[in-house]
């Protein structure tokens, strides 16, 4: 089965090679071939799913052979619960996207499908790589086709957007490369393997620098506030397929980078900087949401909504709790499906009317009822309506941040406000993103679908074709499955997250407790009747992090003590 995993990674690239070497085919045949190859790849990954044991926390389907021996670089691949479902998401989204964007690209079709296929291999490779060098190769390899997809087949400002995308991502990547080289430079020579990097303990100051370098690369990819500004431009200018893959998979590589590399490698730094990361995450949730609301351009609106939704993922990661991190990975899947759907639907409108401006639409519901149904449905899934895909992830993230002992659970003194309970305040602020999501998504729905139909150009607009329905139906079905039966995925994600969280806390253990104790300040200003200072150091009890069946012990009698009698 390890071979099957490798086949899945390279099959799209092989397909690209085939298309490149064959004499030019007709456009239809080119697209059909690409869809056939990627669909086959999806089916192969389903076979892989049947062989995959979700309860196993470690890596499965590993390949580990020497590659560039003199530099300690190995070809090491494998999957665990953190990466497995993201691979499924990738192999699922690519054929769906290609089918959805059937008519969107009419020039240089051969180059386009080759770029998409190479991109798929690059993304899959980045998800399976367990060697830092190998990861870096794939990470950069997917940058190039994406750059071309935006720069060649994009909208009017495509060159600006592509260059911006490239510079932002490159800047982060270079810092990460330096950090990788530093980490791999061990006393005995070179060692790029992920396992040894994770098993080492770096000096705390050093960790801060290395963590910073990795985090910057991943934060740009996510994108986290305030390094998100490349995303709206890239999304707006990219062709539909580019937007879907960008939002659906590429951004997830940022979150994946956090949980696979940055957090287990530099746990002390991750925990020490948790309040900053969590704060930026919440800032991103709110910032992205309010910015989305005022966009006149639909694609930009959806792009900013990604900034907001990915902010939830980062918050869940920052908490380093089982619930929060599981929620973050889950939200990656859900966001991939629902935002992918939104981009496809926006693309459908763009193909028909060649405008992305909300003000050019209005009153379409009567003309295109099937489209309207899908748009409302997808918007609701994205807004996190319970029983649809957006809800479980957000719920787990907020719950994991609010209720669990976590590095965010500390009291921070803010000048003028006194002590602030970080975790709870962040959760409450983050939860306003749930309100705002309804605000901007229903705003879009209304501007497009409701009201009187005023523009005569919209009179002739056609409803979804059979092909487009065939694209949207599986997406809609997945939105329901993800909302109603999260267990299908959670049972695979959770063991790996469990292992990760335990690793992070165990490795961080000592230093973290001392730091947290120092940071824990009085809450509420002193005065008559002020509460006694909290002396409790932040305690991460490993037992509380482990699964306890039917847990019902948060409040035990011994937790309560009578108030001191005056």
């Amino acid at each position, binding site marked *: 089965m390890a071979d099957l995993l490798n086949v899945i990674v390279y099959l799209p690239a092989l397909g690209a090679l085939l298309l490149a070497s064959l004499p030019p085919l007709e456009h239809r045949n080119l697209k059909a071939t690409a869809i056939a190859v990627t669909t086959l790849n999806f089916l192969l990954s389903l076979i892989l799913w049947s062989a995959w044991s979700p309860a196993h926390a470690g890596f499965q389907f590993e390949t580990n052979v020497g590659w560039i021996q003199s530099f300690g670089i190995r070809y090491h691949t494998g999957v665990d619960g953190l990466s497995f479902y993201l691979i499924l998401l990738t192999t699922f989204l690519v054929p769906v996207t290609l089918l959805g964007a059937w008519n969107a690209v009419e020039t240089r079709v051969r180059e386009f499908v080759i770029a998409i296929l190479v991109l798929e291999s690059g993304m899959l490779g980045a998800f399976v790589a367990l060697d830092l060098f190998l990861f870096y190769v794939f990470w950069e390899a997917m940058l190039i086709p994406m750059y071309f997809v935006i720069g060649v087949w994009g909208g009017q400002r495509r060159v600006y957007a592509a260059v911006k995308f490239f510079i932002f991502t490159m800047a982060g990547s270079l810092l990460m490369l330096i950090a990788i080289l530093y980490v791999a430079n061990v006393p005995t020579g070179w060692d790029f393997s992920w396992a040894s990097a994770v098993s080492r303990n770096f000096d705390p100051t050093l960790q801060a620098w290395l963590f910073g370098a990795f985090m910057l690369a991943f934060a740009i990819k996510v994108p986290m506030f305030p390094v998100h500004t490349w995303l709206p431009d890239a999304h707006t200018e990219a062709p539909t397929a580019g937007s879907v893959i960008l939002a659906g998979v590429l951004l997830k590589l940022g979150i994946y980078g956090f949980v696979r590399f940055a957090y287990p490698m530099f746990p002390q730094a991750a925990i020490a900087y948790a309040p900053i990361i969590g704060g930026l995450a919440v800032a991103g949730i709110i910032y992205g949401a309010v910015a989305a609301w005022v966009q006149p351009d639909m694609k930009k609106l959806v792009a900013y909504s990604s900034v907001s939704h990915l902010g939830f993922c980062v918050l869940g990661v920052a908490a380093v709790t089982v619930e929060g991190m*599981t929620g973050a990975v889950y939200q990656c899947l859900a966001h991939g499906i629902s935002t992918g759907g939104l981009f496809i639907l926006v693309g459908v409108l763009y193909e028909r009317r060649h405008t992305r401006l909300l003000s050019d639409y209005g009153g379409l519901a009567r003309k295109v009822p099937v489209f309207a149904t899908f748009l409302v449905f997808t918007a609701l899934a994205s807004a996190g309506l319970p029983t649809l895909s957006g809800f479980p992830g957000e719920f787990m993230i907020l719950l994991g941040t609010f209720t669990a002992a976590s590095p965010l659970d500390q009291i921070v003194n803010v000048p003028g406000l006194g002590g602030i309970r970080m975790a709870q305040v962040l959760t409450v602020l983050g939860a306003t993103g749930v309100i705002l999501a309804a605000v901007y998504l229903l705003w879009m729905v209304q501007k497009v679908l409701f009201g*009187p139909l005023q523009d005569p150009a919209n009179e002739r607009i056609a409803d979804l074709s059979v092909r487009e329905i065939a694209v949207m139906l599986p997406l809609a079905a997945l939105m329901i499955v993800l909302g109603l039966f999260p267990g299908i995925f959670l049972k695979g994600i959770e063991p790996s997250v469990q292992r990760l969280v335990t690793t992070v806390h165990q490795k961080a253990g000592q230093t973290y407790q001392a730091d947290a104790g120092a940071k824990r300040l009085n809450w509420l200003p002193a005065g008559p009747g002020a509460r006694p200072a909290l002396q409790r150091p932040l305690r991460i009890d490993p037992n509380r992090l482990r699964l306890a069946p039917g847990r019902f012990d948060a409040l035990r009698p011994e937790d309560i003590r009578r108030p001191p009698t005056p």
Partner: protein
Amino acid sequence: MIKFSSLAYIPLLPLIGAFVLGLWGKKMERSSATIVALSTVLGSFAITVIATYTMVKNNGTPLQAVLWEWIYVGRYRVDLALGFDQLTAALMLVVTGVGFLIHVYSTGYMEEDPSYWRFFCYLNLFVAAMSMLVLGQSLPVLFIGWEGVGLASYLLIGFWYSDTEKADAGRKAFITNRIGDFGFLIGTFIVLGLFGTMDFTQLRQAVAAVGPTDAMLTTGIFAGFSVKAVVTAACIAFFIGVTGKSAQIPLYVWLPDAMAGPTPVSALIHAATMVTAGVYLMCRLGFLFTIAPDALVVVAVVGGLTAVFAATIGVAQNDIKKVLAYSTVSQLGYMVLAVGVGAYTAAFFHLITHAFFKACLFLGSGAIIHALHGEQDIRRMGGLRKHIPITHATFLVSTLALAGIVPLSGFFSKDLVLAFASERSASLGILGSVGAFLTAFYMSRLYFMTFFGELRHPDPHMKDHLHKPGLSMEIPLIILAALAVVGGALNLPHVFTHTDGFLDRFLGPVLGTKVLSMTATAEYFFMAKSVGIAVAGIVLGYVLYGRGVPTKAAESFVESGPVHGVLYNKWFVDELYQNTIIRFTRFLGSLAAMVIDPWIIDGILVKLSSGLVSGSGRLLRKPQTGNVQSYAAVFVLAVAIITGWAVW
């Protein structure tokens, strides 16, 4: 707990109905769409009756159905579990029973609408969501219904979406409710953080095991706080949810706008069922509110203020549905007030009787609007008594019930609420009485202007081609009016029967029992006072509007003037929200998207980095002047320095 897996079909049947209608409704015959819509709700009603019977037969042991594991993560597990106890039974009977009647009525009311199937699809979806809400056995499962009814309400308010105003009203409803949902979520998290569970049964046990509530917590995320303080915070958070769903100050603003939806929707969702969800939630969590007396004070005050505030607005509205909408807000205020004084059963009693008479009033107003071809302004009505006699009779009965005239249902429930309120505090009692007077007054104004005098419609021939309601509309009206008359029998006062009322006994196991402490004489006196206030309001209404048109006095005091202006414009609350919160948020958005992103972030990141590159280039370019003399000078200088350094 008894396993009763058929519970799942209560929400499932209407959900299937919605699904079938949504996919194939367009191609269906109207009659088959009707059959799908009605049979599924009737099926739910039947299962509810069977479940109630099963529960009662088993001495009130709650029923349960666990569907599947929903969200199992880390230390927490949420099953998709449904529960059925006395409280569930009472509300489910109302939801499916009244819901079915309104479905029947709608077949007549929506007869000519081209999107007949879509209407019933949404209506079935609503019943499914509401059932989820009532049956949910834990906070997250209840939340499915909580948001689901918001969705159905959104779709139904904006049913005629081509009208921007109606689509706006739907969106406003959904978003205002979402603000409440935010409170609900936070409340859930606090409860979970404190008690470690979200399941109602386990929560109840946990609360019972707490002991002294002012004890300080020493561990967990709430260390340093007392149990009471944390529970109070949770209750306030839940109450934010309640103000959204049950339209209390400050989030009531969506409900009057929600009248943009078809009238049966107003009756079912925005009077009888969905808006009572907040009251239901507080009753469900009564054990929690009970140990948070400070939160209860907030609840009582907000409820009492809403009851009066909304009633004042109701006095000055001319749209028949708007009057009823503000009346609903006001009556919900009474229910919330009752919860606030700890009288959960009284709140629930009023919820049920209100469902009967307010649904009847809304359906009656629908019949009137239908008859007048869409006219909603009461200034253009009048004299309808003679033309639509059955609607008139049912409307009159329900009006009297709402005003609180003995022995109709509204009298018993409202009197009980008022008695508990005034026992708790005199000022709450006064608030309640003022509200009751205003209620009687605006309802009689509405009634006389609609049914008395002559028809004032601008179309002089309207009288001759009135759209008389058919049987499908009149039968539900009659049934609901009958229920409005006899509904009081559900919970007759102790002084009459010398035994606890039926609801008191039935709901006792869930809600606990609370009895009035006043003497029998005092209670009779109190009742007399209540009726007196209601009669006074009606008499005033008759004096001012008895001839169907406002008298001169009414014209100058009620229908015009500065007070009228403020009330007619709803105290300018919508404008206040528009100009503060909404404008501020959009300003933030514009600031982010148009200033911070392009100028500050891009300015610093992009321009700084490109500046760094070109700047260093420029700096390195400087020495390369191409002037041989200067190169030579530098060369000589360098040689001199190096030589000097080496020799030294």
